[in-house]
């Protein structure tokens, strides 16, 4: 470890970009601070009081100066704002397709990770280098925050919702995962490691296998166990919408709204089915599962619902173009 560096290790496509912006801020702000310090000390020495009878002439102000030192800093701040906003949108907008999705559940005080193929880890996350990875973040209890300094990215993990965190690792190695949002007693022990591996090694790691089958297979078991299957797949009476080819597609609701059937929608529809009713169906048919299924089980169910739908290739939106261009398929 280089004890003198002011930059942590860099291991994601965005790390260098955040460092560049940070360097720009330093390059603007350090001379600014030096200027103020220098002016204060120069004046304090040059105009130090020589006699108690000194009565310097009053200078009441200068409109030109006031405008100058308001407008110029403001223009510089606009550059900071524009640059920071552009990079923020890029870093927080995952590519729409081609990501490797991994499911992360924060729980006092550990990170539980599920891979689509069924591998499960605690406080360890294995990912391949050079591929866009999308983490779907869920919390079992309080707010946590998933933070990998080497990626220069963090995102809060908020109970009751799914948050996403995406990155593309650039350098094999092991990097800290920290919980950055205070979450109780062992907050500072809610730490782990991301292991970034060469693709071949990663494949080897994946083939190490999983006990209970893929996430979708585990989800299918829950789907049967909770009785979902009787209505949502084999139903002949039209009580419930079929879940085939629903995920990732727009759904028309009975109040006329159209929503996207994403992870958050499926989650809400399991826990609180009456929140959004598909057009043509009735409320209060499906039981409420709030408090019945834990976050990991929900993620497995979602993986299963996803597997029932053919993948969707959405039209590229301008916000994610740059991100997509960099994400190899």
């Amino acid at each position, binding site marked *: 470890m280089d004890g003198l560096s002011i930059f942590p290790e860099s291991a994601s496509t965005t790390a260098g970009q955040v460092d560049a912006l940070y360097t720009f*801020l330093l390059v603007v*702000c350090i001379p600014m601070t030096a200027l103020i*310090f220098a002016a204060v000390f120069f004046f304090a020495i040059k105009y130090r009081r020589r006699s108690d009878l000194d009565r310097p002439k009053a*200078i009441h*102000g200068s409109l030109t100066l006031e405008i100058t030192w308001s407008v110029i800093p403001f223009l510089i701040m606009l550059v900071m*704002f524009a640059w920071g906003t552009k990079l923020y949108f890029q870093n927080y907008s995952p590519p729409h397709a081609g990501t490797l999705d991994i499911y992360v559940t924060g729980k006092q005080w550990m990170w539980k990770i599920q891979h689509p193929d069924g591998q499960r880890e605690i406080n360890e996350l294995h990912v391949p280098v050079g591929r866009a990875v999308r983490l779907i973040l869920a919390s079992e209890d309080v707010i946590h925050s998933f933070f990998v300094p080497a990626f220069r990215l963090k995102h809060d993990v908020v109970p009751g919702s799914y948050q996403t965190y995406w990155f593309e690792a650039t350098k094999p190695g092991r990097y800290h995962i920290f919980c*950055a949002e205070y979450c109780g007693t062992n907050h500072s022990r809610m730490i782990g490691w991301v292991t970034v591996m060469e693709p071949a090694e990663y494949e080897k790691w994946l083939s190490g296998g999983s006990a209970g089958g893929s996430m979708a297979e585990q989800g299918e078991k829950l789907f049967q166990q909770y009785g979902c299957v009787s209505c949502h797949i084999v139903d002949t009476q039209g009580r419930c919408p079929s879940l085939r080819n629903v995920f990732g597609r727009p759904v028309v609701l009975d109040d006329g709204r159209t929503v996207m059937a994403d992870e958050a929608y499926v989650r809400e529809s399991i826990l609180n089915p009456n929140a959004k009713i598909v057009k043509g169906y009735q409320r209060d048919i499906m039981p409420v599962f709030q408090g019945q299924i834990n976050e990991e089980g929900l993620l497995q169910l979602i993986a299963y619902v996803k597997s029932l739908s053919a993948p969707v290739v959405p039209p590229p939106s301008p916000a994610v173009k740059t991100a997509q261009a960099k994400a190899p398929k």
Partner: protein
Amino acid sequence: MSTLVQPHPFDVETKPNYLNVDYGWKSWLFTTDHKRIALLYLFSITAFFFVGGGFAVAMRVNLLFPDGLFDHDTYNKMFTMHGVIMVFFFLVPSIPATLGNFLIPIMVGSRDLAFPRINLLSWYIYIVAGIFTLGAVVRGGVDTGWTFYAPFSTTYSNTHVILAATGVFISGFSSILTGLNFIVTIHKMRCPGMTWSRLPLFVWSHYATSLIQVLGTPVIAITLVLLGLERVLHAGIFDPNLGGDPILFQHLFWFYSHPAVYIMILPGMAVISELVACFSRKAVFGYAFVAFSSLGIAVLSFVVWGHHLFVSGQSMYASMVFSFLSMAVAVPSAIKVFNWTATMFRGSISWDTPMLYAFGFIGLFTIGGLTGLFLATMAVDVHVTDTYFVIAHFHYVMVGGMVMAYMGGLHFWFPKITGRLYPETWAKFAALVIFVGFNLTFFPQFILGYLGMPRRYATYAVEFHTLNVMSTAGASILGLGYILPMIYFAWAWRKGPLSPQNPWKAKGLEWEQSPTPPPTFNFDHPPVVTEPAYNYAGDEEEVTHG
């Protein structure tokens, strides 16, 4: 009130003043004199400052070792109590309730605040609030962080959240009443000739502070009531398992708590304007810009709260607006810094202790302010938020800025308050110790933050060790730096040489027309103002401003 140090009856000048008019305890606890109430506040917030500081020292000791020293729950309670006490029981009341309370009536040429009994009431409310919060400490503490984030605070923490939150809730009323009193006093109690454009900038800045106190504080009260309803009755406002939204809590909390940052720093700016003018013997450069930038800050402070939520899942477009507005609020602060610096140009600058603190304030507040831009820049904030970078940033503003100003103000008005002079050499030495200790404590934390050390960690990865040791070393120096003034102020209050009426040859009603120390009703003769503020040059004609 055993800490209360009064001048000995035999050794004080015979002229009656607010201190020697009566020595009984009743004359203090039932006083309606704003100057005595200011002293009641001074002693209470000093006590809270040292309690909060004690927690800080304990935290820094824990962080000497990567594996910590105390168990995690203890550490979590220490940073929570440090935050709660320092924010709500020291920083918010600090300058307004002490120096503001003492000086505003004199500066506007009034014999007291508009509502003297409400002023006393606000001190009692503050004490009751403090008893609740200290009660929470004594009964085992709170571990939510001063931010009380839900659903941790509402559902998961099993510490004395309600007791501590009740203390904070009650203290809000004290803050509102003080703000209200100041607003009415500044509007209605100005003496003949004290026009708005002649008001000292100290008063302008407190006016802006008071507006925020009156408008913002009710929101934290509402938020804490909702928190209590959720915790006790499971109302389902913040906890998603009950149908609530945890992010709503953050919006409500920061809707008060970001403006509250300006409740804390604007009074610091108030003091600095007075110090820079007096010790440069010059009118403040751009009086109108400094005055109106305070109001600009007060208004903008209410529309920047969302910059605390850039990583919370808040809409990216909302974040964009908050980022822009947060940049904008930096402009009026920058205006002030430039104007203070320009005031020194061609002045007659003395290096007395209060001015040393003003130098410190300008430099450290600049660093604190500019690092605020780093946090307003969203892509950088994503990396550094919730790390030590944030801790360093707001301590540069709060301790490097606000506490420096407070110390500068205490030294500047010490002769006014006590009628005696403090030992200048010791004071200069203490100012230097505080400056060095402060920077050694908090500068390494900027680096720690960018390296990725999260805040509120009882234990940390070994690569952060060296910088943490530096920070703890600095904190030890800083702690000593704060004890020194306690000692020489206590000594000077009893034994210091008697002060002349106007030891700094300063302008302003409090020095020129009010005796030192002031009599109970502040003036021997009704004051009249015939010249602009800071007329150090002695110009006969009133100069029209910009």
